[in-house]
């Protein structure tokens, strides 16, 4: 049996303040209501020079990009495999899935996402930890009416362009390309 060194546990004032701030933010989050604008909560992150987003409810975790085992002979968009909560997941290059975008910095984060494939998770690389954004649902619907692609371009107030990713469609497309 090992003897474990004990250290005095100190309460972190910084952590307490941070948690209070988070709670405050949550309290301020607009509640659902008929009179309020319906929005889609999304996770926004950069891919090269562009901004992309995934529906927030698909995001399960953001983990450091390490302990990924590369899989020789795999399709090029596959970075490798990793363990996450007892499952073996495939880590994929989002930039590659999107058709070979350039990137500003080497991704250091993996987003564990549920693409709607029966509960099966996949991991996507990401240059930075995403930030939550709300997109007016009306704008999303408008963009969807214009395109049925896996990535639709949503123009936000202030003319900012955001590429909203339909993960299931994106992965299905990749599967079809691989088989084709």
């Amino acid at each position, binding site marked *: 049996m*090992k003897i*474990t*060194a*004990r*250290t005095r546990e100190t309460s972190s004032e910084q952590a307490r303040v941070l948690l209070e701030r988070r709670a405050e933010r949550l309290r301020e989050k607009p509640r659902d209501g008929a009179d309020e604008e319906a929005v889609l909560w999304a996770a926004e992150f950069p891919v*090269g*020079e562009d901004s992309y987003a995934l529906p927030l409810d698909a995001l399960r975790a953001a983990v*450091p*990009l390490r*302990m*990924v*085992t*590369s*899989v*020789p*002979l*795999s*399709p*090029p*968009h*596959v*970075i*490798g*495999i*990793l*363990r*996450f*909560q*007892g*499952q*073996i*997941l*495939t880590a*994929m*290059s989002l*930039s*590659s899935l999107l*058709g*070979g*975008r*350039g*990137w*500003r*910095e*080497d*991704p250091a984060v993996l987003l564990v996402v549920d693409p709607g494939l029966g509960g*099966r998770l*996949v991991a996507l*690389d990401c240059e930075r930890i995403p930030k939550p954004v709300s997109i007016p649902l009306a704008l999303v619907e408008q963009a969807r009416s214009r395109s049925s692609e896996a990535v639709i371009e949503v123009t936000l107030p202030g003319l900012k362009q955001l590429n909203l990713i339909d993960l299931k469609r994106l992965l299905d497309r990749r599967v079809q390309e691989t088989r084709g």
Partner: protein
Amino acid sequence: MTDDFLAQLLPGFVDESAEIVERLTQHLIELEKAHDKTRFDDLARGLHTLKGSSATLGLEELSDLAHKMEDVVLPLRGRDIALPGAVADAVLATLDVWLANLRATNNKTELPALAPSVQLLESLRALVGAPPPKKNGSHMGAAQTPAQAAPAPAPAPAAHPVAKEAPPPPVAATPAAPAPEAEEAEPAQAEEAGSWRVRTRDVVALLHEVERLREVRLRVDERRRELDRTLAALTRLGMLAQTAEVRGQLAGVQRALASDGEEAADIVASMEEGLKAITTLPMRTILEPLRRTVRDVCKTTGKLARLSVVGGEVSLDRRILESLRGPLVHLVRNAVDHGIESPEVREGRGKHREGALVIRVEQQGNMLFIEVSDDGGGLDNARIKQVAIERNIVPTAEAEAMLPAQLHQLIFRNGFSTRGTVTEVSGRGVGMDVVRNEVQALQGHVEVQSTPGQGSRFLLSLPADLGSSPVLVVRCGEHQLGLPMSAIETSLLARFDEVKTSRERIQLVHREELLPLADLGALVGLRQAEQPQEGQPLLVLQSQGKRVALAVDEVIGDLELAIRPLPPEVRELPAYQGAATLARGELLLIVRPDWIAGLERKASAIASSRRALVVDDSLTARALHRTALEAGGYVVHTASNGRQALEQLRHASYDVLVVDIGMEEMDGFELTRAIRKKPEIAQVPVVLVSAHDSAADRQRGSEAGADAFLSKKECVSGRLVAEVSAVVARKQGAA
């Protein structure tokens, strides 16, 4: 003993007894062939344990029956002869009844009669030279009825009831050894007292929790590394005096984290080991009892057959094992009854009198393959067709048009049997139906192949999520890969005089045989194929009847690992069986031996393509460059640092290198300069890429000898390939 108390103890006693009966069965089968003192002694001990344990639980009738088995076995102790067939038959049959009675007692169902077994054993007493049975009431009489065989509600017996009994009577001519002491039964009982019954789903849930704990352990490690970096940063700041106290505290936390991490790793390893022991059992636990099945069917049918088992050490989820027990019994009984010919017929056909029955088990990733083959007469296609028509299973015209493979599928139909009459062994037409249904219930399938006069082969394929198998871990470049130990014949070190190289292939002279020799790293696309170096580790693999030599960079060692299926995005890659988790949490890919064995024809298919080496310490950057370059028609190999790139350049030639500037170990400038200094590779074009586009970097790249410079944001689709192709063309033009 109260009924409640008995009900608590019985389930464990049933399990323990089943194990003992299984062991005794093996002993009886072997002792019937030849005397073996060790086996005989264990047989005697086992019978004694059954007797003592059942008596302890108040199951007097079962204790008496075990005693009667001892009566016909123990007089033979010390005689250097095989166990008489009649004795083996009687004890085997009695053990079956004994166990069935115990199970029925536990399940509170109708008890099988013990009286016929008693009569059978009594009839053998004269044969083995045992004295007549005692007439007191402690032993059950032959005329006992099933009702009388119910567990006696007697008070709990003394602690060692059997110790009071007289030792078995001496055998004529040879003195009998004393009966094993009652104490010998105690270890088994003690073990039993410590066993629990747990629900499978609880164990599976626990497995997942252990996986989570392993990840927590990894996070603890990561925290420690973060602390390392913080301490290093504080030291770099130079305010050593001002930060001394804080650094001291952090160093204490760091040591504590390191210790916690190690302890957590030990706990995880220990829990995984324990869970593996709980959830899995080796296949041999269900395969060994089949020897008894083969023996019994042979006795009934007058045939001779020997069962060989290969792969019995493969461990599997207990639930799968339990489900496979029935189908395997059916397959084995069918093989002997329908497949193996009588000794006379076999002799007439030039075969050995004794038929060969082989069960081969192999786990490939999450798939389990069980092959049951015999060297008998094979399936009788004409008879199958005739029965199918006679019983209106298929219309005549359809039956006539059926190919052999289609006819073979008919044997899995419910009620199909080619036996004209129902015998003790077969003829009911339910056996193969059961096999198919059970295997399908496990999400598997059954295939059958048969050659007239040569035998049949049934292949059961089914998924096996849990379980472990021995894996050899090897290294190729920076990659670790696993190979199933079952496929490894031997390992050796390469010697130049044993490696034969021609323009087409490399071969290894091994035990006076020429084997194809391949480089594992090249096979999985990590590098170009090359001739092994003197002293390089080689493995000889066998799979699907082929033997192949495989060069690796290092043999790391063998581990018992649970192989899990790969996720769907990479599951269809034919190279891999699955992945296993190593101690630190990283995944190890397990390569399929049959894929390697079948690779001879696939080699060098891409020899004429242009080759690019991507050197980048970012996994994701390597993936992106690969995406672009492969789309542009390049064969891409990768290296994660400059040192590895130089190593690859030493053995292979590339048309272009795509090199990241910002690598930790040897940056892109340094690598470029190193390349330019080596005359043999100095001409290879180098394209530098950088996350940061600066004039200074471009200038440094140019000075180092790079041919082009791209920022990573410029590596958009098409741009990288265009730049790389332009550089290659310029170099070739200049040459």
